[in-house]
């Protein structure tokens, strides 16, 4: 194998392995937030390694720069949906107080009676 092919295979393998670990984490971890951490890894490390691999594979067509731009766009946009989902999960009270050891947000933004209405 040439150096180009080896790099492609290594990057694609790392990406796929991280996606697999993310899937395992989705099944194994107990609640919304920890599963979100696991799922976030598939979009950051997994997808960016696969894109870099594709960029190296199509090196002659100058696609590496395009892959880097794509990664930057994914990095800029995917945390928005993750944060929105985390906030929604917190506000509908789907995780407390079972899995959180410290919760400094509790008394700040959420009216307890409001949460009770949602969970009942």
């Amino acid at each position: 194998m040439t150096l180009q092919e080896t790099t492609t295979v290594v990057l694609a393998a790392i990406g796929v392995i991280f996606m697999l670990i993310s899937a395992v984490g989705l099944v194994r971890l107990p609640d919304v937030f920890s599963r979100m951490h696991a799922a976030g890894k598939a979009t950051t490390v997994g997808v960016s390694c696969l894109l870099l691999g594709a960029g190296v594979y199509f090196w002659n067509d100058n696609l590496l720069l395009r892959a880097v731009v794509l990664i930057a766009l994914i990095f800029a946009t995917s945390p928005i949906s993750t944060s929105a989902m985390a906030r929604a999960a917190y506000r509908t009270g789907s995780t407390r107080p079972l899995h959180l050891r410290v919760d400094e947000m509790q008394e700040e933004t959420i009216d307890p009676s409001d949460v009770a209405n949602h969970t009942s």
Partner: protein
Amino acid sequence: MTIRFSLLLNFLAAIVWASLQPVAESQNYVVGFVIGFIVLAVFQPEYGRRVGATVAFVIFLLWSIVVSSIQVAKLILSRSPPLDQGIIAIPLRAETALEIATLATAITLTPGTLSVDVKLDGDGGRTLFVHSLKLGDAEALKRDIQTEFEDRILRFTRGANRKLHLED
């Protein structure tokens, strides 16, 4: 000349450079940007420092993504995941939308930490709520985010002296 105007000039230099090349290749934009940056940084050292701080922050962010994804992967694959979750409140010095959005995005991008909400305090300051998968010492994590992430972001949005008041 403000920093923002210099950035615009730098992108303009990249486009001009790329369009003057005989063959259309996307690398020309990168080369043009680097040449434009060198010229601008010579005449405006502050611009060079700001862009340097931005590049340093991006490298730091990529490195911390790699390190913490390996940590989270280990945690997922361990026999019984030793979860120690919690949400901590971090008082922010970041003020503008750009600073807060960059900080929240960087925290969410790093596996293991996740920004949940931003609250506007009564006195005009802001508090960021961060969920952590492996909390450990809550105060140490707060200090880490303030010194590692926030300081680096303020260094490229406000300059090295880290003034509290915004310029331009």
